[in-house]
């Protein structure tokens, strides 16, 4: 059904979006939990940072990543010197750019889920001798995990379509950083490439819609399960 080239592009996309979600999920959970807590100093700053990728142009995010994680950037040069890791113009870099762009989506979904859980249950856990970390792991996270999963799936679906930040930071290398939208863009640059672009667009749409449907199903199932 799909050509070898199309499989490769889809594979690159899935790999980039998958890694982006896996590595940013723990950080997103931490952010979301912190933001769901009552007021604390620096909360609005944290909130702003988490939402920045939503309001900044993706190309600017890619550029900022390049300045920071590029070979001559402060973090990038340290990573290269210490671990020999290159991020700019690699699949890992594409995953990083995708993760940053999808981060606000994840934080939002997870935060809503933390906020919706009954604070009284944390008190109940505390009087049963559960400390703060224990309460988080044994009550907050299990109650919020449908939101966590839904946030991850939504971020994954959105990550498949990330363009501006990826092309700026990781470039458009076939087989390495050429994800679906980048491949569509490339196909459109070539005379007679519309047919390929259309097929890739179909694949991209299917993957995104499938992701959203899965997220919705998880939410519904979980809501039924946690009803009291």
């Amino acid at each position, binding site marked *: 059904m799909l050509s070898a080239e199309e499989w490769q592009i889809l594979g690159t996309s899935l790999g980039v979006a998958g890694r982006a979600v896996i590595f940013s999920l723990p950080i997103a959970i931490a952010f979301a939990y912190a933001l769901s807590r009552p007021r604390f100093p620096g909360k609005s700053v944290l909130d702003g940072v988490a939402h920045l990728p939503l309001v900044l142009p993706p190309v600017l995010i890619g550029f900022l990543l390049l300045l920071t994680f590029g070979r001559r950037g402060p973090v990038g040069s340290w990573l290269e010197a210490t671990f020999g890791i290159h991020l700019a113009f690699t699949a890992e870099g594409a995953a990083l750019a995708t993760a940053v762009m999808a981060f606000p989506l994840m934080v939002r979904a997870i935060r809503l889920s933390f906020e919706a859980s009954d604070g*009284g*249950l944390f008190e*109940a856990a505390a009087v*049963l001798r*559960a400390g703060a970390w224990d309460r988080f792991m044994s009550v907050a996270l299990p*109650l919020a995990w449908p939101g966590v999963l839904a946030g991850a799936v939504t971020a994954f679906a959105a990550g498949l379509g990330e363009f501006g930040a990826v092309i700026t930071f990781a470039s458009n290398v076939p087989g390495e950083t050429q994800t679906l939208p980048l491949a569509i863009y490339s196909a459109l640059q070539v005379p007679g490439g519309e047919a390929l672009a259309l097929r890739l667009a179909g694949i991209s749409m299917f993957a995104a819609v499938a992701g959203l449907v899965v997220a919705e199903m998880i939410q519904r199932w979980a809501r039924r399960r*946690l009803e009291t």
Partner: protein
Amino acid sequence: MSLVVAGAVVRRGAFTLNAEFEAPAQGITVVFGPSGAGKSMLLSMVAGLHRLEVGKVSLGGRVLEDVAARVRVATHQRGIGLVFQDARLFPHLSVRGNLLYAERRRPAHRNTPIVDDIAEQLDISGLLDRAVRNLSGGEKSRVALARAVLSAPELLLLDEPFAALDGKRRRAFLAMLRDLSVKTSLPMMVVTHQIEDAAELADHVVALKDGKVIAHGSASGVMRRQEFVSLLDRRDLGSRIDANAVAGVRPGGGVWVRADSVILATERPKGLSARNVWQGHIASIHMEADGSALVSLATEPGYISSRITPEALAELHLKEGAQVWAVVKTHSL
């Protein structure tokens, strides 16, 4: 060992709780007062869910919170259990999961209660594999109680967990609480605004009104005091009698005898269906605003009040010091 609350102040919005009392950490201490008196807040304060503004709380000599000395033991390290009014069972765990949650977290040296034993005692053995959402209100209360007992606290606080239960099921729950308190010798502090519940459960009483402790001490003593009586509705006025002295009720604890349910006789009654007849002397007669007379009698089981009409008072020639018989129907208790 006792719970000592000294000059404690807790504020929540416009409401302020001022608490000063000492309660022995054994038997059942009832926290009594009308709705909005701050009873739940008092429990939350002892459990460490509300921070003190000033004052000190200690249990058995161990300081739990002392604002002046900047000491505050976190809720999970206090070893104080709390059964909430709304049960607060974990919805992502089964009934057994909820019980094990408590059992796994208690310190190893306090390993007395066993899940199956407590489940049997509280009649929830058949529910262990059920999901929490499929329980009735009474079942939820019992599971919440079992969970709290299994965490082996040094003091168990109960915030009217039987509020949602009515009639028979409520009485059964109270009886179970008393049994549990005796069998496990786990000291309890129970909130209620119902005078019958207070009389049945209390060994000690802490009475609250408008965020202040107005009386505290032994149940038999406090429940006769004017400060305590002032908390009661007119139709609830009465007296606490030791349950062992009353025919037809469960032994242990107390019974609240309403003044309206006590009949007076100037001669020893004969051929009565009522099971409780006590001889005594009139200690005082208090005239109420509507002309009724509240007659207080010193009888063998203790002081009893009877409310009678002005006509009856005149007809029977009742005076202080006169000998009378008090008649109480068991079913009115």
